[in-house]
């Protein structure tokens, strides 16, 4: 029965799961690249190049693994939130909270497995290219191409297991929350309460705060070792503290422009603040992507094109995963945006004004993310890394933010334009 429910629900709500699939597809590519690293290294025997490939597998899986855990956790958490009514109906139909949680976990496992299979189909034909390009920065002789690249079944099986395991593990909390959905939600729309951070998050914020400050102090004292990773610690600190920081940051800077400026600004600001009160994901993720981009600036990858390409090979994928996750959270709210747009038109706004409001909202989201990312990147400007100028760490920021803005704007405006082409009554869900 569970298997049937898992499949039927995945098919019925494929839009909700599409974003998770895309992020898991990318993480599947990463897992397969790591499997390729290990397979090829084993085939080479104990050489310097084999050691470099194993090193690449470790760095790559660690960096991307962390990002994927966060990204999938955010996406599935949001998916569960969007499907509260459905989960409540399951309870009314007799499913226990544990069964509902199991169904959600099984759905994530299914999606991650499908994504891994899709990634396999996509990666195998271009494995030579990927492995040569991505492992280039860590190889002793980057210009010498890798020979005899292989993908053995053993490392691939381990990669698949780790991939699915990481995806499932990162959604345990969201699955439990799905099981605890009040049955009343089946018959009455849930009150739109902002999610309040719990004690666990408070403790995590404290710990990452100590870690980040400790690492930064070590860096200032010239430690020169692992404390140089302090920008990552600051990003982690922001990731756990985002619910406290993102909303107030947006409220603060947008208050500089009074609501009396115009109705479109009034609506755009209210919409942005309302969205951020329900989920900080879009703003926080773009800020994190920009801060990760800034981190590449601190290690000097922006000095010349050759080094830039190498830096992007090493650090580009996490930035893409985070941006994709941000876009996905916006995409998942598409139907809500269409309905809200129609409601605004019924209230008297023109479609053109609603489109402009959506564009302004995208600006609000991006500027807020930019402010947060700048604050996160500032510590590296005070005492720059050796060989770096003070503002080097800020140079990548505008580029990542530009990509983020385009992503948010397109995903915010497209549903409005699409809703505009259909009768308003359909968007409002009013029966004919």
């Amino acid at each position, binding site marked *: 029965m569970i298997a049937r429910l898992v499949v039927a629900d995945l098919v019925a709500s494929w839009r909700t799961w599409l974003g998770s699939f895309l992020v898991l597809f990318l993480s599947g590519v990463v897992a397969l690249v790591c499997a390729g690293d290990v397979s090829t290294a084993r085939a080479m025997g104990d050489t310097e190049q084999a050691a470099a490939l194993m090193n690449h597998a470790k760095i790559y899986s660690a960096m991307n693994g962390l990002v994927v855990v966060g990204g999938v956790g955010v996406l599935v958490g949001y998916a569960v939130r969007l499907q509260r009514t459905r989960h409540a109906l399951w309870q009314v139909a007799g499913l226990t909270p544990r069964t509902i949680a199991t169904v959600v976990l099984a759905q994530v496992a299914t999606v991650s497995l499908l994504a891994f299979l899709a990634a396999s189909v996509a990666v195998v034909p271009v494995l030579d290219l990927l492995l040569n390009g991505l492992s280039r920065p860590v190889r002793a002789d980057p210009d010498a191409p890798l020979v005899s690249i292989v993908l053995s079944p053993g490392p691939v099986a381990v990669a698949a297991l780790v991939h699915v395991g990481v995806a499932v593990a990162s959604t345990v909390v969201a699955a439990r929350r799905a099981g605890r959905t009040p049955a009343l939600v089946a018959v*009455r*729309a*849930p*009150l*739109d*309460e902002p999610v309040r951070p719990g004690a666990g998050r408070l403790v995590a914020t404290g710990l990452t705060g100590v870690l980040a400050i400790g690492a930064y102090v070590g860096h200032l004292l010239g430690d020169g070792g692992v404390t140089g990773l302090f920008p990552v610690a600051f990003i982690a600190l922001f990731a756990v503290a985002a619910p406290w920081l993102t909303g107030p940051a947006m409220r603060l800077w947008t208050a500089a422009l009074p609501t*009396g400026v*115009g*109705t479109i600004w*009034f*609506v755009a600001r*209210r*919409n942005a*603040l*309302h*969205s951020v009160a329900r989920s900080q994901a879009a703003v926080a993720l773009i800020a994190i992507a920009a801060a990760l981009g800034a981190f590449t600036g601190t290690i000097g990858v922006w000095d010349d094109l050759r080094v830039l390409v190498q830096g992007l090979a090493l650090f580009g994928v996490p930035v893409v995963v985070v941006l994709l996750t941000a876009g996905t959270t916006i995409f998942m709210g598409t139907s*809500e945006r269409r*309905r*809200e747009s*129609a*409601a*605004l*038109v*019924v*209230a*008297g*706004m*023109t*479609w*053109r004004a609603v489109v402009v409001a959506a564009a302004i909202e995208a600006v609000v989201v991006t500027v807020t993310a930019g402010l947060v990312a700048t604050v996160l990147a500032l510590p590296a400007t005070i005492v720059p890394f050796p060989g770096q100028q003070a503002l080097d760490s800020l140079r990548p920021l505008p580029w990542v933010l530009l990509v983020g803005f385009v992503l948010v704007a397109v995903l915010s405006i497209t549903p409005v334009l699409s809703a*505009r082409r259909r*009768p*308003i*009554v359909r968007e*409002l*869900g*009013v*029966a*004919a």
Partner: protein
Amino acid sequence: MQAVVSVRDVVKTYPGPRRGERRTVLDGVSLSVAPGEKVVVVGPSGSGKSTLLQCASGLDSVDGGSVVVAGTDLATLRPEAAARFRRSTIGFVFQSYNLVGALTAAGNVALPLRLATGKADRRAVREALGAVGLADAADRRPGELSGGQQQRVAVARSLATRPAVVFADEPTGALDTESGTRVLDLLRDYASGTTSVVMVTHDLEAAARGDRVLVLRDGVVHTELVSPAADDVLAAVAGARGGAR
């Protein structure tokens, strides 16, 4: 006296179950609403009540006939002009409320006023919310209000700009009896003498509050009653059900 709403021989079709087939939902319906008049449309499910309201209010297009509201033929309006016309002339109340979730109750009521005048008249907003008994809930968002409260905000919003006509589609459909009665009282009392109301409902008690009741059957007007009692409406709807295709 010129009619506020004039629907003439309106035909509306939707795609049928088979390719190329069209299903006729409204088949030459005419309706005229005088200023300040409260017209109620009733009929069996699938008789075309909501479609009539959607066509009469310009939310949906028509395949034949004409719809004139406050002297303007809705077919002549381009989308942007239609939005401005709706803002100034028409109010809506839906069964599913359709408030803007990001705005507070006051924000929702203020929105059409802001759009019309460029600024929110706080006193007008306060008065509108006070009139529907929600002065204390001005700062709460739709998600924090009960269904009845949300519907009362929707009524306050629809009437805040003093529109020529309010279209209400099953405004009490999702409400308990007490909340429903309150919303109907508001529509009756708060609408000024110059504001007309066109309401679709399944509730025959509510229908009996209308100055005029149209009973629809299979997309045509089956019966028209003037200031009817609930029993008269019941009998007319039963007659329409009996003869339905």
